[in-house]
């Protein structure tokens, strides 16, 4: 067997390393237990929902109920609303963000750093600082509960992400490539569209998907600005109580899993690019 090159700090399994393996397993028990428990709960019947045992007859009734039962339209509407507003926010972020990221990645111009830091400050600003006035403005202008209004504020989440990630991808692209294209008779725009843009495709895909996940997962924006007809899936689930007066934990668990599934699937598909995305390109991996 070929000896694998070891990274600093890496060791092959030794008796002393068994302790480390035990610790690793312990973390993952803690980390995965709530997800496993949520899955189990979602498969339990209403009679079993309050027992804490791991053996029971699994049923898919809860999924059927939350999607197609009496309150099913709420969750379906929530999924649809989340899809429309998240995708809309990502689309706008890409259209506006790609040129800005290219400008910031290629040129050092007056005010470029200020612009980038202004974007980053969106990421760290307390959401309610903007949401208090927006709530009142939206109520006056009728934008409350409109997808346009929600897409507009979701930019606070998605735009900085897209711009910062893509800037780091554009910076890594050797300027020689576009220079060569210019010498070959391309215009600057053609060089950008035909040379630079295709080469950062992985960055665009990763940035867009991550932005989508963040928009999908956001809670405080839709909670305040889209509380009725436009209720998104996170808001719908956080207040999910099932039908009637009783609280149905098994129904809520099924709904929670349905709402958590799209981000999980997307995240696994862009795992290679996650580090760079989550750290806004500040950490390149």
């Amino acid at each position, binding site marked *: 067997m070929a000896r694998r090159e070891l990274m600093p700090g890496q060791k092959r399994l030794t008796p002393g390393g068994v302790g480390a393996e035990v610790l*690793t397993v312990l*973390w993952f028990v803690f980390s995965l237990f709530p997800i496993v428990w949520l899955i189990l709960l979602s498969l339990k019947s209403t009679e079993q929902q309050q*027992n*804490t045992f791991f053996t029971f007859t699994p049923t898919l009734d809860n999924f059927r109920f939350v999607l197609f039962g009496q309150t099913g339209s709420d969750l379906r509407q929530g999924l649809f609303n989340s899809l429309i507003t998240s995708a809309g926010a990502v689309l706008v972020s890409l259209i506006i963000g790609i040129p800005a990221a290219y400008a910031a990645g290629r040129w050092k111009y007056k005010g470029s750093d200020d612009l980038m830091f202004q974007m980053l400050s969106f990421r760290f600003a307390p959401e309610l600082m903007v949401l*208090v006035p927006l709530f009142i403005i939206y109520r006056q202008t009728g934008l409350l509960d409109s997808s346009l209004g929600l897409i507009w504020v979701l930019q606070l989440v998605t735009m900085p992400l897209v711009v910062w990630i893509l800037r780091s991808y554009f910076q890594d692209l050797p300027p020689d490539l576009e220079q060569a294209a210019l010498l070959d008779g391309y215009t600057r725009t053609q060089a950008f569209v035909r040379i630079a843009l295709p080469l950062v495709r992985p960055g665009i895909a990763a940035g867009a998907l991550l932005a989508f996940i963040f928009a999908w997962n956001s809670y405080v924006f839709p909670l305040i600005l889209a509380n009725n007809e436009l209720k998104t899936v996170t808001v719908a689930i956080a207040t999910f109580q099932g039908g009637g007066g009783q609280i149905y934990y098994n129904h809520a668990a099924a709904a929670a899993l349905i709402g958590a599934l799209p981000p999980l699937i997307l995240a696994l598909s862009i795992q290679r690019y996650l580090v760079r995305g989550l*750290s806004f390109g500040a*950490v390149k991996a």
Partner: protein
Amino acid sequence: MSSMLDEPVLPDTGATPPPPGKPPVQVPKWRRDLRPYLLSVPAVALIIGILYPFVIGVIFAFQNYSAQTTRNRRFIGFENFQQVLTPGGTFFIGHAAWVTVYYAVLATVIETVLGVGIALLLNRSTIIGRIFEKVLILPLMIAPAIAALAWKFMYNADFGVLNHVLGLGTFNWLSADTALYSAVLVDVWIYTPFVAILVLAGIRSLPREPFEASSVDGAGPVYMFRRLMLPLIWPYILVAVIFRFMDCLKIFDIPQVLTGGGPGDATTTLQVSAFKDLINNGQYSRGATYMFILWIIVFITARVLVGVLGRAQRRAAGAED
């Protein structure tokens, strides 16, 4: 680097070659200089569009605007600030600010220590580590509001699974004394993977030679970690700390879903408090004042931490030479 004489090779992107013999297009210098600005115009417009409600919010903080005073709304100077900054007053910000900072420091410290530990464990690259690395990020990708709901079920004193599995009887996870720690535990569950994958990426980007050299010199693992690895991955750790600390300062969804800020005001962070003012009480000005103060705290903290990060990055770059 290729020599100047080499013709740069264009990557094959499937683009059609330009017509031959066409001379390079000459663009006047002033138009070239304008290019990055033009490209940034939409982004600037968006920033201004978001700054508008922000400025309105700042104005609110200096008015007496509430659902009750809509008709005779006026500027009252620093009265709101005086109200929320007077210790002992009805609207004193102290408790919410304390809860917020306590939560942020506690969660950030625990997540950083655990995250670095997990990164070191996973870096060992045994079979177990490689399998688990794939699922490490799962909690991070579930909406915090949904994760908080799942934990709320598990915390239930009467039939929650935690008391059952841990044999705690009817321990109340969400009492006035415990709720804040239970909220931090949910935060730790969600965000420790964030620290771990950033630090793991940092460790994997390190040069191998210094470690081999010091290993030959007989350095122990603890010495190697403290003297060699830690200074080199410090910038990565700091990036994680900055992101976590700033996000924790404005934490909302976890305490809101878990306990609605309660019991009493045990988990009422500044954002939860402002939410109550805005939605439940219609106290727009007071909510805005809370948020303005939080924004100042966040802004100053960001400046300090980013400065520390810059110094650490320069030192790590120097250490690599």
